């Protein structure tokens, strides 16, 4: 299989997307399922990184395997294989396999085609060896994923989707601008360490930052994900932010700024998540929080921290996917995902409830669940580097995660007061998908050595020692205590049927209001000018009509007259400028 080993992993997905377009029924399902399986096997068996990386020569890439394409005068490198890209490659195959099973009952060609294109673009992005091909897949991610939101086909979804797309395209434009400047400065478009010493570096960082939901750039995520279709959100949660995390880990490891940004990302969403009613939106906020841990890890930049960041990305895709899947199953059956309207569903959906609890335990980093083995790496690295206060912030964030994602999600959906809703258990394919994810969560949580073996940097680390386990359990139990106590005392924010607007207020409310105000002012100004002009024109006309000139119809037809005027202006202006100014 020599020829195949250099086959970029996105190609099977793109071909499958075409095949899905022309097939129907069972054949289509088979193609959908076979794509990630075959692609994943190919990646697992045929593709090996050149040399295992060690911490010292971090990210010097091995280009033994590369698949290049000449696009105008540039060489596009579609297949740069090292352990970092390979880890994300495995992850995206697993994630797309789970999500495809979860979405198998969907009969919507658009969604099926774009989800394959979307997964393919994500794979293309992590294996891209230069900034131009990264940009191509970056835009591919944006253009394909937006259809997963639009596919809900409601007025609201179309509007939200469009706003989502604007953010994503902006990120793409910034990336392109940055890449062009980077090329102009360095003469190369290779995608390796970039750093923030140059303007180009900043532009690219902001582009990555939009996709990884930095504070104030995050609104597309919290707005868009809850609006997508139940199955679409599962795809969305797996790829976009993780590609961004990958890109940050590749381009900006050890950038101090990222530690602070990451710490902010872990904390601020907690407040919103606690008061939010739409449970999928709660998950969207908790997603920012989890990405915050990864960004922190990248910012610290030691081998342990970077390993922790990518390992956490790996786990996050699976447990966050599991949570989104369980909420999607509820939405699918009940048709509504507001915490205020649900409750007592454990009676009718016991399996979904159980699987949701596994996901909740993993995201809260319970020992023996997957979140614990990766989050603790980031936390340890933080202490080792002496960021004590930031470490406390992360501790607070960990408690917060448990609060809103670990307890709130399962509690309000499945337990709480009985809402009287009686529905059927989730469809079999959804249950299978969720079970796979749940098994993975527990497997990685109990046998972390297999995940650690895949990590790009060589580090000896073992999470199950006394301090870690105890500290984590203390946080969790006190956090649970706080939840129970607040609830008993009636102090816990009640689930209200309301929409919380955070930073998107600026462009959903402030900008339109400013625009309206300035428009009114402009209009008044225009009116005044127009009146003045009209009066003087009338004055001119009365003089003109009295004169003999009016007998010649000089300017009767608008475009012709106006164009001839312009010709005169340009010719005259040009000649004057030519003669006097040059």
């Amino acid at each position, binding site marked *: 299989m020599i020829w195949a080993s250099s086959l970029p992993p996105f190609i099977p997905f793109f071909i499958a997307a075409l095949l899905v377009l022309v097939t129907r029924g069972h054949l289509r399902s088979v193609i959908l399922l076979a794509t990630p399986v075959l692609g994943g096997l190919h990646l697992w068996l045929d593709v090996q990184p050149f040399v295992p990386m060690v911490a010292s020569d971090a990210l010097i890439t091995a280009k033994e395997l590369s698949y290049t*394409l000449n*696009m*105008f*005068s540039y060489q596009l490198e579609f297949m740069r294989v090292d352990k970092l890209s390979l880890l994300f490659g495995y992850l995206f195959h697993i994630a797309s396999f789970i999500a495809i099973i979860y979405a198998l009952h969907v009969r919507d060609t658009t969604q099926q085609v774009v989800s394959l294109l979307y997964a393919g673009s994500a794979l293309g992005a992590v294996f891209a060896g230069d900034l*131009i091909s990264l*940009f*191509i897949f970056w*835009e591919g991610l944006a*253009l394909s994923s937006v259809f997963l939101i*639009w596919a809900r*086909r409601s007025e609201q979804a*179309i509007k939200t989707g*469009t706003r989502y797309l604007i953010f994503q*395209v902006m990120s793409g*434009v910034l990336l*392109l*601008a940055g890449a*062009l*400047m980077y090329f*102009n400065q360095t003469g190369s478009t290779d995608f390796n360490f970039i750093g923030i010493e140059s303007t180009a570096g900043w532009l690219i960082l902001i582009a990555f930052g939009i996709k990884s939901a930095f504070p104030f750039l995050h609104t597309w995520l919290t707005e868009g994900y809850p609006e997508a279709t139940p199955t679409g959100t599962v795809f969305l949660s797996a790829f976009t932010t993780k590609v961004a995390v990958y890109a940050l880990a590749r381009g900006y490891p050890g950038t101090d700024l990222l530690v602070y940004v990451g710490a902010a990302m872990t904390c601020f969403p907690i407040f919103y998540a606690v008061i939010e009613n739409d449970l999928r939106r709660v998950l969207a906020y908790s997603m920012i929080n989890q990405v915050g841990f990864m960004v922190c890890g990248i910012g610290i930049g030691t081998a342990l921290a970077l390993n922790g960041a990518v390992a956490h990305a790996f786990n996050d895709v699976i447990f966050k996917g599991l949570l989104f899947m369980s909420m999607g199953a509820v939405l699918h059956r009940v048709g509504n995902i507001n915490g205020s309207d649900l409750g007592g569903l454990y009676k009718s959906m016991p399996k979904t409830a159980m699987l949701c609890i596994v996901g909740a335990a993993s995201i809260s980093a319970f020992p023996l669940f997957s979140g614990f083995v990766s989050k603790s790496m980031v936390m340890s690295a933080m202490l080792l580097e002496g960021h004590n206060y930031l470490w406390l912030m992360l501790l607070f964030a960990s408690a917060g995660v448990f609060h809103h994602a670990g307890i709130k999600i399962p509690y309000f959906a499945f337990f709480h007061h009985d809402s009287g809703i009686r529905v059927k258990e989730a469809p079999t394919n959804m249950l299978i998908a969720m079970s796979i994810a749940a098994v993975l969560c527990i497997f990685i949580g109990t046998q972390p050595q297999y995940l650690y073996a895949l990590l790009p940097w060589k580090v000896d680390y073992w999470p199950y020692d006394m301090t870690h386990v105890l500290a984590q359990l203390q946080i969790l139990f006190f956090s649970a205590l706080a939840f129970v106590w607040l609830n008993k005392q009636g102090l816990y924010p009640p689930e209200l049927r309301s929409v919380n607007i955070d930073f998107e207020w600026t462009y959903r409310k402030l900008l339109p209001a400013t625009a309206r105000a300035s428009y009114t002012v402009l209009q008044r100004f225009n009116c005044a000018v127009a009146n003045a002009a009209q009066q003087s024109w009338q004055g001119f006309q009365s003089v003109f009509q009295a004169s003999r000139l009016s007998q010649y119809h000089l300017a009767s*037809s608008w*475009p*012709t007259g*106006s*164009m*001839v005027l*312009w*010709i005169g202006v*340009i*010719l005259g202006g*040009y*000649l004057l*400028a*030519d*003669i006097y*100014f*040059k």
Partner: protein
Amino acid sequence: MIENHLSLLLVALPLLAAPIVAVLPNGRLPWALSTLVSWSVCYLAAWQLINVSSGQVISYELGGWAPPWGIEYRIDAANALVALIVSGIAALTLPYALKSVIKEIPHQQHALFYAAFMLCLTGLLGIAQTGDIFNLFVFLEISSLSSYALISLGKQRQALTAAYQYLIMGTIGATFFIIGVGLLYAMTGTLNMADLAQRLPELYEHRTIHTAFAFIMVGFALKLALFPLHLWLPNAYTYAPTVVTIFLAATATKVAVYVMLRMVFTVFGFSFIENTPTDELFLLLCVTAILSMSFYAIYQKDSKRLLAYSSVAQIAYMMLGIGLGSVLGVTATLVHLFNHALMKGALFMAIGALIYRVGSSRLEHFSGLGKQMPWTFAAIVIGGLSLIGVPGTAGFISKWYLVLAAIEQQHWLIVGVILMGSLLAVAYVWKIIEVLYFNATDEREQQNTAVKEAPLMMLIPMWVLVLANIYFGFNTELTVGTAEQAVKLLMPGAN
């Protein structure tokens, strides 16, 4: 034998075909003959391009009169590329035309329509081929007069007004051009471009030469619809028969841009231009045009008019390359010349297919058609992506070179404007797609549910162009390669 007279045949074939087509009985015959001619011309143009692709220059003496006294056809990579664009688009438009013309033009005028089309093709090819500045004027008039006639054949009554306005404007443009040519002739005594290029440098300081240049620039700025002299274009494109819009949008303005290139770089030389306000003027007008015209396009309610405004903005991108005056800039101009013909051709063909089925070009009449006509819809999406400049499409390549050219000279404002223009393009392409795909609640959609996919005769040429948009987004040997060859000859001093 053919190879020796290749350059002439390219112009003579359609010219000879025109009267024959005109006297053929109305029916399919005129169409068949014109199609045949356009295909042979396309073949010849491709042959010609291969002959000059490695940097040779073919000089053909018309009637055996040696230049500079006789008329010379002087073919290098730039001409050959433009000739290929013109003939290629004609060869694709004519098969497409069969059904559309039957629907839009009265039966008794079919033969005349195709005759006028052949004349227009003759004129455009002639402009591209000739190396004689007066001969260029003659071909300019041939193409202009025939296009006035073609536009006036539109179904709505406004077509007559639009054609009339274009006639006035076009005539002013041509007159300005001939005034300029007259002044040049008075100063140098020659009409041959290569000869002029040799004689002009010693007269650079002369005010008459500056005036001549100003007249020629303004005249052609009119013909290529450079903002703010574009006012004739939206009406002409909107009311002309669909086929005419496709053909003119993809070729006529491109040929005018080519003439601009030829005048600026070959005849006058960029060292002359640098001492005039031309480059600053171009940059100023183009930046304004890209922003304002893209903005105008967003607010159009008629699909053809929307694309027409977008064309004005896109032409500004090409002129921007000339205004920058660098090797990269002119390469970008030539590449965009080619790519824009591909994308606008594809888009107007797709819109034409919608018009063919619905009978109107207003956007609101298109609602929900995306589901009924998936292939046409897909063509609009891909054509639109190319117009925006998404990577993997031809549009990206031209934007890329243009941005590189602007960065090279540290014109950050222009870089911003180009990127901003792309965002505005997203908005106006989105308008079409939104109507086609999302407006599901409209009552019009009920009427549109019976609409079928466009006929195969329209889909095939449309998709040839759509696939070309993707192909030239990856393989740029033809576009960028030829453009670089052409730039070497246009700007011998640089690099």
